[in-house]
């Protein structure tokens, strides 16, 4: 069953149009990856789904409900939760407080709580009292993911979670993906690291200049096709 789909998603930054009708589908339990070059519209797509950028109501449909026009907080309340690019932890909150923000103002039930999140990322339990910004980049990314998980999301939207991290740290973070999916969350990841995206995703969407240029299962896509979809020219 389709849990989330976008139809004709558009976005503008002033006079500049960033998205020209993006159609995505996410099945219940699925993990899809959005790849593409810098400026292709990957992050803009996630910002549109998460309500940072507004759309027509029918542009984003979640669980049968039109939500394209809703503000970010309402979309989060429906279970679509973002791990924003650059982590965006709250500097004046400790690690533990950052995690608990995910449950602010709502009753949350499900697999994820402080214990299960810190079981997934044990270092966060050790550093629970530290200011979030005192942590290393990888640990901060774990806080950002944990903060989103604390609300027991139905869809986890991950924006460039490997950006600026060392390969070994990226591996550690992606190692958490299976358990996140097992808990019942569907996942949308935006990745520049194609090989990582192909490894973790069930299906891949490639964006170029605000349009979907290629979709398919990782096993169906070959290098040349991706290259062409990425840059508009074949290798």
């Amino acid at each position, binding site marked *: 069953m389709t849990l989330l789909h976008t139809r004709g998603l558009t976005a503008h930054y002033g006079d500049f149009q960033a998205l020209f009708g993006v159609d995505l589908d996410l099945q219940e339990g699925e993990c899809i990856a959005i790849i593409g070059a810098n400026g292709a519209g990957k992050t803009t797509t996630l910002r549109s789904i*998460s*309500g*940072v950028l507004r759309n027509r109501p029918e542009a984003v449909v979640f669980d049968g409900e039109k939500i394209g026009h809703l*503000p*970010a*907080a309402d979309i*989060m*309340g429906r279970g679509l*939760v*973002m791990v*924003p690019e650059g982590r*965006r932890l*709250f*500097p*004046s*909150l400790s690690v533990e*407080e950052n995690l*608990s*923000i*995910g449950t*602010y*103002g*709502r009753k949350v039930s499900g697999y994820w709580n402080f214990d299960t999140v810190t079981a997934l990322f044990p270092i966060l339990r050790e550093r629970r009292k530290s200011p979030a910004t005192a942590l290393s980049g990888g640990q901060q990314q774990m806080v950002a993911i944990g*903060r989103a998980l604390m*609300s027991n999301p139905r869809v986890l939207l991950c924006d460039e979670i490997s950006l600026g991290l060392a390969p070994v740290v990226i591996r550690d973070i992606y190692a958490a993906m299976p358990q996140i999916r097992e808990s019942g969350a569907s996942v949308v990841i935006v990745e520049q690291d194609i090989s990582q995206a192909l490894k973790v995703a069930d299906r891949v969407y490639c964006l170029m200049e605000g349009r979907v240029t290629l979709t398919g299962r990782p096993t169906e896509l070959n290098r040349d096709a991706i290259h062409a979809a990425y840059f508009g020219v074949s290798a």
Partner: protein
Amino acid sequence: MMWIDTLVQGVLLGGLYALFAAGLSLVFGIMRLVNLAHGDLIVLGAYVILIIVSALGLNPFLAALVALPIMFTIGWVLQRVVLNRVLGEDILPPLLVTFGLSVVIQNALMQGYSADSQRLRPGPIESASLDLGVVTVGVMPLLTFASAVVVIVALNQLFYRTALGRAFRATSDDPVTAQLMGIKPASVFAMATGIAMIVVTIAAMYLGMRANFDPTIGPARLIYAFEAVIIGGLGSLWGTLVGGVIIGVAQTVGAAINLEWQILAGHVAFLVVLAFRPRGLFPRAND
């Protein structure tokens, strides 16, 4: 001997100024909004208490308790309906709107209650005093100072020990990400202004019990509050108390030299701090 007395009176007066300032500091810390009507809202609070006192025949302390939810609601609605609309990069709209509010409140009170001085009468406690050996202090000033400390402790607890406090800090850090985490800044800000108005009500109660008040005295209270906040360092509540004490001591010392210098001395103390420590005595690292 006389100087110790002056100093103690000044410190205790500082408690009143810290109460004026705490609400201003709270709102600024959370949403970077400087409410130019803050002083007039304190005066409005005093009139609300006065109305309750005369309508229900209550003691001002009890009347203030009744006024709390009313003032909270006023603040909440004000933020939801007016102030949330003007928050943003441009500082002009919030300044002008709150300045407009200041003029409206002042003149509405003037129309409703004339320019006559009013007073809240708490009974015998008003003139009661404690002999502390070296100095004799009034019970009211002491109570005011104690209330300021309690208010600051309570606000710090709220800030650092509750979910709402976390939401305040998160929204203040990064409103966009806060929304992604399901926090609605509009509601958080409304709560903040509501809570600030609770502090305003407490300040108003002491203002009204310790001296006469009339519709025009709000702006001067805003200025004392502002000076206390700047001296203490933006966003530091304990710093605000220190700032209030500095203004209070400067005023009583000034008054001891020449009665007409009281207010002037407070302002001069502020300017001196501003000249040498422009970021206040206890600045936050990330401002």
